[in-house]
């Protein structure tokens, strides 16, 4: 297209007025093409940024253009996997628009709100909902007709029935329920209590924001940090299995309700004596004394390694905000810390969603699937803009130990602390309960249940925590059962 005509190259012009002249047109041409090439790459980058990268870049709370876009187009809808509308924009009688959440409190934390700041999916996909990716002809014709364009719709992996079951089961108790598909990573329900009505955030803002005792705006399922209690025995058991190459058949312990070792005293829950227990019994009965005994034999350095492999003290492969799990076990830890940590007390902290991910990896033969909550973005005409791919995070736990752990967790339901989950209709549950002490008053404890269920093989995992709920088997397990029922029936 562009030619460099070189008129001065006639033979007689090489010597002019007695001077030599430089004929560097080849070099000048080279410099020209070099810059053209650099500019083409830059244009390519700008196109790539606009088409691909900008979508994640602009969805940042520091981008102050939300109000501007909201005045120009209709914010898109958020839907459940059953195509129920979880958030939508309605017009009022004066021709204005307002955001509406038909399920009110039920999806409050996960769907969030966009009426007073943004939270939840409304925040994660803020600019997706405010971007119109409908085809250009319909956009232009809307523009010209003075009609507002519709933003994109966000389809979630949330299951309306399970969410409602979990929400109702929690009743007025504080805590969280979260469930996921162990084979795909789809998050199926996320409940956090106390809750709020996202339709009335503006009116109640001061109360919601200043209530530090209940923190109703906090999504406990992701951002809560709790002592794991006996659910952590999964980790301790895994470490013991690893140190004995999976063969623990010769383990035995006589439980007298407490265990004393090098000046540390560990009591069983309610100081129950479990009598003679083998490894599986210790786990099923959640015997603290036996697990303290087990912990006392562990290699601290390797134990710390296993804890870190389960993503404690590190970032999680999650697309939303969460709190990082904490454990301070290391080669220099004291014996007391080792025993306390081994039974899930000590200074260990974990979020419900992280516990769910560990459980889910055990159910899926050690492989953790990346959890996700947005399955698809569609434009207003139903055309798919992006679709989330199911992706493996990796082998979190070696497969040779997950089979033992699965059996042990099944034993918890059959013979142990979670017998309330034995009588189920068409599926079988495996899991672990926990009653985590959280204050110096030993009678106060958080009730945990984390487990998985399936018809033939594990399909979904559920984690429940009830703050101050007491016994995991009595309080948390029945809540999990209602979530399992909602999925399987």
């Amino acid at each position, binding site marked *: 297209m562009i030619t460099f005509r070189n008129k001065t190259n006639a033979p007689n012009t090489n010597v002019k007025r007695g001077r030599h002249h430089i004929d560097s047109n080849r070099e000048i041409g080279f410099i020209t093409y070099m810059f053209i090439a650099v*500019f083409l790459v*830059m244009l390519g980058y700008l196109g790539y940024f606009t088409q691909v990268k900008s979508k994640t870049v602009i969805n940042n709370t520091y981008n102050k253009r939300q109000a501007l876009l909201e005045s120009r187009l209709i914010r898109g809808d958020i839907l459940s996997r059953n195509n129920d509308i979880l958030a939508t924009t309605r017009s009022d009688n004066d021709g204005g628009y307002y955001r509406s959440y038909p399920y009110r409190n039920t999806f409050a934390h996960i769907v969030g709100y966009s009426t007073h700041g943004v939270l939840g999916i409304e925040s994660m996909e803020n600019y997706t909902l405010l971007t119109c990716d409908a085809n250009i002809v319909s956009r232009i014709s809307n523009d010209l007709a003075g009609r507002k364009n519709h933003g994109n719709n966000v389809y979630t992996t949330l299951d309306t029935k399970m969410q409602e079951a979990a929400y109702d089961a929690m009743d007025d108790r504080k805590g969280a329920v979260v469930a996921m598909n162990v084979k795909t990573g789809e998050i199926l329900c996320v409940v956090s209590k106390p809750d709020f009505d996202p339709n009335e955030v503006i009116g109640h803002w001061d109360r919601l924001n200043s209530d530090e005792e209940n923190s109703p705006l906090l999504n406990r399922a992701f951002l809560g940090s709790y002592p794991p209690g006996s659910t952590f025995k999964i980790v301790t058991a895994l470490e013991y299995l690893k140190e004995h190459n999976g063969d623990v058949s010769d383990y035995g312990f006589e439980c007298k309700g407490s265990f004393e070792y090098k000046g540390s005293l560990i009591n069983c829950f309610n100081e129950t004596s479990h009598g003679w227990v083998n490894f599986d019994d210790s786990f099923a009965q959640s015997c603290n004394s036996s697990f303290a005994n087990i912990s006392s034999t562990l290699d601290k350095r390797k134990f710390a390694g296993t804890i870190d492999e389960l993503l404690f003290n590190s970032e999680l492969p999650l697309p939303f905000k969460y709190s990082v799990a904490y454990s301070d076990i290391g080669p220099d830890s004291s014996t007391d810390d080792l025993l306390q940590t081994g039974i899930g007390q000590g200074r260990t902290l974990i979020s419900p969603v992280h516990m769910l991910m560990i459980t889910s990896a055990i159910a899926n033969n050690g492989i953790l699937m990346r959890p996700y909550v947005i399955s698809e973005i569609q434009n207003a005409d139903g055309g798919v803009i992006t679709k989330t791919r199911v992706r493996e995070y990796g082998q979190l736990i070696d497969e040779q130990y997950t089979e033992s752990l699965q059996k042990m967790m099944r034993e918890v339901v059959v013979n142990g602390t979670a017998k309330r989950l034995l009588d189920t209709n068409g599926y079988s549950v495996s899991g672990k309960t926990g009653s985590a002490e959280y204050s110096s008053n030993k009678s106060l404890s958080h009730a945990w249940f984390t487990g998985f269920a399936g018809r033939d093989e594990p399909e979904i995992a559920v984690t429940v925590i009830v703050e101050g709920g007491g016994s995991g088997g009595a309080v948390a397990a029945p809540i999990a059962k209602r979530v399992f029922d909602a999925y399987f029936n």
Partner: protein
Amino acid sequence: MDRILIEICRYLIIICMSVYTIQCFAVFRFSNEYDRKGIYLRQNFFMVAIHFMSFLSLYAQDGDIKYFKAYLIQQIGVLIILAAYKTVYPRSNSLIINNMCMLLTIGLIILTRISYAKAMRQFYIIMGSAAVTFIVPFIISRIRFFEKFKWIYVAAGLGSLVAVLMFSAVVNGSKLNINIASYTFQPSEYVKIIFVFAIASILARNHQFKDVIISAVVAGIHIMILVLSKDLGSAIIFFVVYISMLYAATRNVVYFLAGFAGGGIASVAGYKLFRHVRVRVTAFLDPMGTITNEGYQIAQSLFAIGTGGWLGMGLGEGAPNNIPVVAADFVFAAICEELGVVFGMCLILLCLSCFVMFMNISMKFEDPFFKLVALGLSVAYIFQVFLTIGGVIKFIPLTGVTLPFVSYGGTSVAVTFCVFAVIQGLYIAKGRDNKKPYVPTPDDFKTENLNIVDLERELNDNV
């Protein structure tokens, strides 16, 4: 009704800009200005159309009559510059004039949108600079002994830079400006031109190893002073200009490669030595992670471009004032946000077409001094465009230079006028050389050297 008008304008502006840009490259299909005349006229039409529609939508938005007034004087001003060049310098290159006026128009539009007061101030600076530099093509095309002043150029350039280093206040961590009365000058801008003349006069006729060393020392001192003033953008421009001129003058690719190897080492050294270089690199690598500090500017710029998308939010409908220094260094982000990335890409191509035309002119010269001057100025221009746009879109780390003719800033506009005027002068001078009767040599009559078509074109060109 207003809404519809604004939307129609939004799409029409993008279409006009796209057609204009295509025509910028279509001119290269023809080899002489006569054949290109039709294209040039159409370009002027699109330029006026874009200016008009932009102000129509600004006016439609808040109904302020001041936009109407501003449009009238801006449009008349730009057309005066256009007409003055075309009538007083009939042998000048119209693509360069058109692009110059188009860039000024785009700058005035986006500045009016960002700040009415700044736009008006910029307008008067433009008219003043245009008037002062209007004589430059005449001088350049008449006077042929520019290359005799080589040590004067060196002294003037270094003197100005040293003055900045010693007397100027520190703004944003860099020493750039000199204040005289109430005016602020940024000497590194105009020293660029003097520097090109200095290097061209050193290397034009003599390029023995000794001359290369002399030129390298001169260039090195310039760049060192700029680095000490923390004016890194200018330092890099001077460096690239020097390497390009050295390569073209010596035709020795070793210097070219050695230059870039040296540049690479200097960049690493700069990164290790200077905190403000590390800040820029940190911001480039992870603007979102450092959004509260280093990455703030670049993140705001990316928000603007990303939110605007391909077609833009529409003039007056974005939030460009969220971007720091939006009128100067980040003007390209504001353009992308409101007029669209398509428009922004056209703007990039428009600058590139200026550069290609500059380089074409440089190639047509046989006089080595003017050839090098044209080359040096072209590279200085296009590399500055690359630095500012590349920085704003996070293609490269930010260096904080202006977009010539578009950004707000007096020195930048005046100096860019000067660069364009010098090239225009060279083009006119070249045209006059061609008018001298061509004395054929016996070689020309050998059949393999006869090119009838070319000869006819040559004649056309000279009539």
